[in-house]
């Protein structure tokens, strides 16, 4: 977020706690309790890894868990002071997934060090150590967002800037030469030397903010002016403009960045915010038809023309029959997918136990396939627990959207939460063979700074909106202080005011 510091008229000398009127439950202590519980699970995970890798649990096994614990505790304190009414489940749920991710990456480092007969990597060395550092950076970013943006509605002032930034971020890898932007067949990166960022991860948040602002302003015209056809209200042709633009944009992503998942993500996010804003099911129908039509055409073009469509066609072929020998042995074929599935299958119901499996056999196990690697060791039971955590985060985000009073906040919270859920679906569906595999990161689990930072910013935004949502209506929030006035801007208005 590049939002400039907002002049926050905070009563400086009395402190933040004074905003909380007596009798209102902030649930901050519940958050703290859940957070400690989550860190205990992370510590037990780390200890089990050591027991399986070294046949002993050393006195130092708790250190990584304690370190991430301290980091999350820091954010918890920031939340306590800047967003006292924020949803108490979000932070611990994300912290648990993030902590398991760090622990699992460190477990991979340990296994590699043992296999190569190298000394054990230090706490901040290896992929696990780097992920720990990225977690620190992400939490600082999240804290800064919470500190700077005291009211989510402020974001709407920069909506057009954010929209432009978002589109630029999406387009950069597409226009860069493949040598800089391509990793494993997908052009989603900007690489300088050993360092690389995935700008698309940040684009999500910028685009959601822009869509939300745009749709709050246009929802009247998009939802009311319509023609009825087959019992469904369809919008007028000229109102289709923005939808078609975003559709084309996402198809360009599909073709030039060679990534179905990202395209699905952007388009899905737009269609859902559009649907939520207008309450018109016709948008969903148009969106789904456009997207799947586009995907099918891309598949057919890939089969006949090849060229930029070939990559997508290959992915689809591999998805249809991963175990076929030709697909399996082909370069860029189903090898990863198959190894991931075999890892998951080997794990079975209960898994081999943290540290006892062979996740090293799965390619890309640190990034795209981390869920498969984890699945071998924690089994269906463990993965289901993680799946429920993701669901909890998404639904809590949605709930913040339901409860917040302004349209912009509703759309941003709903859009961000849905995007997160969609991303989890796209990657997990991909590695479990439900849908064609695309290179998405698994939020909070995969190694990688871009994804972690962007998703923590997303969580900070949800925390901010949920704080506004759960704040008492009579609350002493700075914006609401003083006599009630009509909202100065339309997007700041309550939904109920707008809806006739």
């Amino acid at each position, binding site marked *: 977020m590049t939002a400039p510091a907002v002049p926050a008229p905070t009563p400086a000398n009395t402190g933040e706690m004074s905003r909380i009127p007596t009798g209102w439950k902030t649930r901050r202590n519940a958050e703290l309790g859940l957070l400690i519980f989550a860190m205990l699970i992370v510590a037990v995970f780390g200890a089990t890894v050591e027991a399986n890798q070294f046949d002993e649990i050393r006195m130092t096994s708790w250190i990584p868990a304690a370190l991430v614990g301290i980091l999350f505790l820091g954010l918890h304190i920031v939340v306590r002071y800047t967003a006292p009414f924020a949803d108490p489940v979000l932070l611990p749920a994300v912290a648990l997934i993030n902590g398991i991710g760090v622990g699992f990456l460190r477990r991979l480092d340990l296994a590699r060090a043992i296999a190569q007969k190298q000394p054990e990597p230090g706490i901040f060395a290896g992929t696990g150590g780097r992920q720990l550092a990225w977690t620190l950076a992400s939490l600082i970013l999240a804290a800064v967002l919470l500190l700077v943006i005291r009211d989510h509605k402020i974001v709407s002032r920069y909506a057009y800037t954010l929209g432009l930034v978002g589109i630029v971020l999406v387009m950069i890898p597409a226009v860069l030469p493949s040598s800089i932007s391509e990793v494993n067949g997908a052009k989603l990166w900007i690489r300088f030397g050993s360092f690389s960022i995935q700008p698309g991860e940040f684009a999500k948040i910028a685009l959601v903010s822009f869509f939300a602002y745009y749709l709050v302003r246009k929802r009247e015209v998009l939802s009311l002016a319509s023609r009825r056809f087959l019992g469904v209200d369809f919008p007028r042709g000229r109102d289709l403009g923005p939808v078609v633009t975003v559709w084309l944009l996402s198809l360009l992503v599909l073709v030039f960045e060679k990534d179905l998942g990202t395209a699905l993500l952007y388009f899905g996010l737009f269609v859902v915010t559009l649907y*939520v804003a207008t309450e018109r099911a016709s948008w969903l129908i148009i969106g789904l038809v456009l997207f799947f039509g586009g995907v099918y055409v891309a598949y057919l073009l890939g089969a006949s023309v090849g060229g930029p469509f070939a990559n997508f066609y290959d992915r689809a072929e591999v998805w249809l029959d991963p*175990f076929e020998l030709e697909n399996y042995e082909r370069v860029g074929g189903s090898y990863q997918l198959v190894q991931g599935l075999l890892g998951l299958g*080997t794990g*079975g119901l209960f898994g081999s136990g943290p540290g006892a499996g062979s996740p090293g056999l799965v390619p890309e196990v640190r990034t795209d396939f981390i869920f498969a690697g984890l699945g071998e060791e924690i089994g269906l039971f463990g993965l289901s627990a993680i799946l429920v955590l993701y669901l909890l985060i998404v639904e809590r985000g*949605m709930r913040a959207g*339901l409860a917040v009073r302004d349209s912009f906040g*509703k759309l941003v919270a709903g859009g961000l939460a849905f995007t997160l859920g969609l991303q989890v679906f796209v990657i997990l*569906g991909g590695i*479990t063979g439900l849908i064609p595999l695309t290179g998405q990161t698994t939020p909070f689990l995969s190694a990688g700074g871009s994804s972690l930072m962007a998703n923590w910013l997303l969580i900070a935004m949800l925390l901010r909106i949920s704080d506004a949502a759960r704040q008492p209506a009579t609350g002493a929030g700075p914006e609401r202080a003083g006599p009630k006035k009509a909202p100065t801007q339309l997007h700041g208005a309550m939904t109920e005011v707008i809806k006739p």
Partner: protein
Amino acid sequence: MNAPLRRAGVVVLVLFGLIFANLNWVQVYRADDYRTHEFNRRVMVAEYETPRGVIEAGGKALAQNKETGDELKYLRVYPEGKMYAPVLGYKPVGLGATGIEASENDFLSGASDKLFADRLSNMFTGDNAGGGNVVLSVNPKAQEAAWKQMNNNQRNVSRGAAVAIDPSTGAIQAMVSMPSFDPNPLVDHDMEAAQKAYKALDADEDDPLINRAVGATLPPGSVFKVIVAASALQNGYKTSTEIEAGSVYREGGATIRNSEDEVCPGSQVTLKEALTESCNTGFSRLGVALGADKVKESAKAFGFEDEALKVGDLDSGTGLTVAASRTGAIANPDGTTDTAALAQSSLGQRDVRMTPLQGAMIAATVANGGRQMRPYLVQKLLGPDRRTIYTAEPDELREPISSGVADDLRDMMVSVVENGTGKRAKIDGFTVGGKTGTAQNAEGANPHGWFIGFAFDDSGKAVSAICVMLENVPGGHASAEAARIAGLIMKAAAGRGGD
């Protein structure tokens, strides 16, 4: 806006439900498939985590392991290379094994129920000693003699097989198939190199990967006369019974002649003389006189048409698959006996096909008083700590002939070696019996040379029964070379040195 937002929440719930359902499919329903899938390297790595059991014979390791220090910790090594390869087979990386490596795989890998106690104690002690060891019944001296004699045969024959059996137990003393292959490149941890080596062998026209001793079915020629003679003896004939012979015999469309003019030119010859000289006309007439049913019945009693025989482990019944030997239909399309076919079949021609092992089993049955022992290769199973878990208990497979008939046949077969066509099989200090066979096969091709036989020591104990088969032997008297090799193998099996 709340209603569509709720619906979006439900959509996410449904999407996650799909993921959960699919995870159940992958991790529960398909779990067993995936766990043991050929693409799953875990299976492979686990397989090489502990040393595979050693296969040995007479104190000599035939298949052992070398530590590699790699991810696949042990490399399978076959110190004797080609000599034992058709018996042992090989255990390649990531693929199914062949031979004894395959049939004893559970025991060698340590997965067998017989090693349950070892696995249990491993669970408590934490170390894993690996799989159990397999001791073969093969006598290394006999095997070496067979290998050397077959490969250095005096007719430059490149394909053939030899099997020696202990007649009283059924234990295989030697089993050689020629040409053979070096199993070591096939078990290379570099799977591509291994695959290349396999493809080269697979493309070889001499089929080195086939164990001819149990897998090749060829016309046995005059060896089959032992079966016809047994059938005659069971049907009232005596060794001294005069049977019709002559220099030519025409039956149906078939013309039967003897191999040389001086063989049984007279109209009558005793059964014993007919076998000794390998009288074709006599045995064709005898077969026709007995009828197809009786000949087929006798062949079946000796093990022809047996499709289920495995030679390996008497306890589990696993082992090398033995191809079924066949007499063929010997019938016209309308079901009546084709007498021309019968006349030819009685000489082991036409559609009669036999494996070398079946030949050795016929000789062993005669030497063992009519009782045919089930052939086996696995003498002992030892635990990882080398304690004996199982010792082979010889098992009677069938009793095709009475001991009286067996004695008569023995007499006749000894006469073959003493006075007849099998003289080259004689060994000093032993009473040797047998039967030669020279089998026509394809038009213009050299005949196959066969010899089946047995040897008794001074005390009257049957020490070995044998079958030697050489494919397409050039230079006439195809069976003579087979008889010579057979004698030397039996001598080695009896403990009287190689050559």
